[in-house]
């Protein structure tokens, strides 16, 4: 993917459109060449396709390249008539550690620094594409299982929430970093439409408590995910579920999935996604009181390590992973 680190963000409309074209071109190229991926590992084993997020050195943080590859992999599996079940997992020590905050400005993954004063009109397109990715995962016509171990943070949680089912290691850690007051933990996407926490306002939505992070075991007890097993049994357990789902006639599964997702849409999920990016937009324009922690500034001034350190000191009461 091209990098636009030094470009002025007033050009965001142009260059995100350009990125979109690049992305589509990459899709087409991959379709022609039998597809090759840089940031994921795509494996097919009979009726089961496995997509492994493969940036272990970054704990599978999502940059644009990884996200595009993930969606392209899902596209390939969706189009492959043999495949009935898609398993999404992570390589290395984590499932996914969320947006890659070291991505260059202008990428779709990290939050945009308010200093750049983007226009709302430009950002609507940008945000729509960003949130569309979750909906794309959710509307994949085949059964999707997230196999979660280690950290499943921020956007990673969004990915697992958009899968049909999640099987996690008991010691996996779900949550969203950097929210100091009303933190919704595993339901961070819920304010805007986490499918698994719908309907909002329920006990599920709040994960039963006010914690920024919860373990796989707790998440399973709250039915936020489908099952938690000891870490060494995770692979086997997911295999068992995938095998069972691969016995289901795929056309039927697609129809039932459409029925369930459609019911969520009627209750307002689609609008909740729009709300999500509206709020993202609003966040681009805030200003900070002198005594407030400005994480954007921390990142500008001290770089990513400094940002994480500042966040750990000021925002998250729990020891940071880094």
């Amino acid at each position, binding site marked *: 993917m091209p990098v636009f680190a030094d470009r002025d963000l007033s050009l965001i409309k142009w260059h995100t459109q350009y990125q979109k074209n690049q992305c589509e071109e990459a899709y087409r190229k991959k379709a022609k060449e039998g597809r090759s991926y840089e940031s994921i590992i795509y494996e097919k084993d009979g009726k089961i396709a496995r997509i492994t997020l493969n940036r272990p050195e970054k704990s599978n943080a999502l940059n644009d390249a990884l996200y595009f590859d993930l969606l392209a992999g899902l596209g390939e599996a969706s189009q492959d008539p043999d495949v009935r079940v898609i398993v999404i997992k992570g390589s290395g020590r984590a499932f996914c550690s969320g947006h890659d905050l070291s991505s260059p400005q202008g990428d779709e993954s990290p939050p945009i620094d308010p200093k750049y004063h983007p226009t709302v009109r430009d950002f609507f397109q940008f945000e729509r594409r960003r949130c569309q990715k979750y909906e794309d995962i959710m509307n994949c016509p085949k059964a999707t299982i997230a196999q979660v171990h280690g950290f499943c943070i921020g956007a990673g949680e969004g990915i697992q929430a958009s899968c049909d089912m999640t099987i996690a290691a008991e010691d996996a850690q779900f949550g969203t970093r950097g929210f100091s007051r009303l933190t919704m933990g595993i339901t961070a996407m819920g304010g805007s439409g986490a499918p698994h926490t719908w309907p909002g306002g329920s006990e599920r939505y709040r994960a039963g408590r006010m914690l920024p992070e919860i373990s796989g075991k707790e998440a399973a007890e709250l039915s936020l995910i489908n099952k938690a097993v000891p870490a060494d049994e995770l692979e086997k357990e997911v295999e068992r579920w995938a095998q069972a789902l691969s016995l*289901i006639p795929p056309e039927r599964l697609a129809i*039932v999935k459409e029925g369930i997702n459609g019911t969520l849409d009627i*209750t307002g999920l689609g609008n909740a996604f729009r709300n999500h990016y509206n709020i993202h937009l609003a966040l681009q324009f805030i200003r900070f009181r002198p005594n407030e922690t400005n994480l954007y500034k921390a990142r500008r001034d001290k770089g990513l390590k400094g940002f994480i350190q500042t966040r750990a000191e000021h925002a998250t009461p729990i020891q940071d992973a880094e």
Partner: protein
Amino acid sequence: MSYETVILEKKGERVAHITLNRPEKLNAINDVMMRDLKAALQEVEKDTETWVVVIKGMGESFSTGEDLSLKWPSDVMTPPPKERWFLSELWESEMRKSNFWQYIYDFPRFTIAQIHGHCLGWGCFLAMVCRTSIASEDAVFGDPSIRAGFTSLNPLWTWKVGVRKARELLFTGKYIDGREAARLGLITIAVPKEKLEEEVDLAVESLIIGTPIGGFDSESFDMIFGRTAFDISGLAAAWGYATNVHALSAIQRRGFEPGEFDFFEARERLGMKGAIEERDRPFKELGF
């Protein structure tokens, strides 16, 4: 009035019991039972002295759901792969089913499902459309219809158990016990088997005590506030949507892939019991 497949009896002044009565078929629901159940409820509706209706099953089970031994054309069974509906015929059938469930869901008296033994497929629907469902802890819940290539759609699945568990139950067709069903919100409470009737009687009694408080009875409140709130948040539309998606699944012609389980063929070859065993066997081997 007497019915072929259900028994309607008045217990005391205020309570009607409707018992599904096909014990030899574990109260599987066929077209006749659909008609009878609705007619019995309509009879109860006319009798304004009846405030509470208990729906329960005769014999070993509450209900095993759709009667899979039926031959098409039938509202319960979708056509075998080589048959097709006329569009109006399909539409009428789908609307009859949808109206049937919504009629019970909107029934103007308090309905209680008393569940023991198996409660599968449409049995679960019946449990969900009643205001309250009380089950024995060892009752078996689930909707295995997808395993045989049928589609089971009802917006209440998502509404009651949440999307994660709705997908899990409907995609794998797995069975859960009463205790788990209560935990997920599929039913209201689960009690030990020997206490089931006692618990239902208690609920009935409390409703009868509560109902005559003019203007504040639980049933009207439920209807006026609860139902309307649900409809505003989309449930009314979701019924329509589910009906349409189900219509698609009923009319879509799907060939069975080689080696794939073909329920209609298995039913011919092995009979009902054998076909259901064959349907569940590979899932059982995987622990589902």
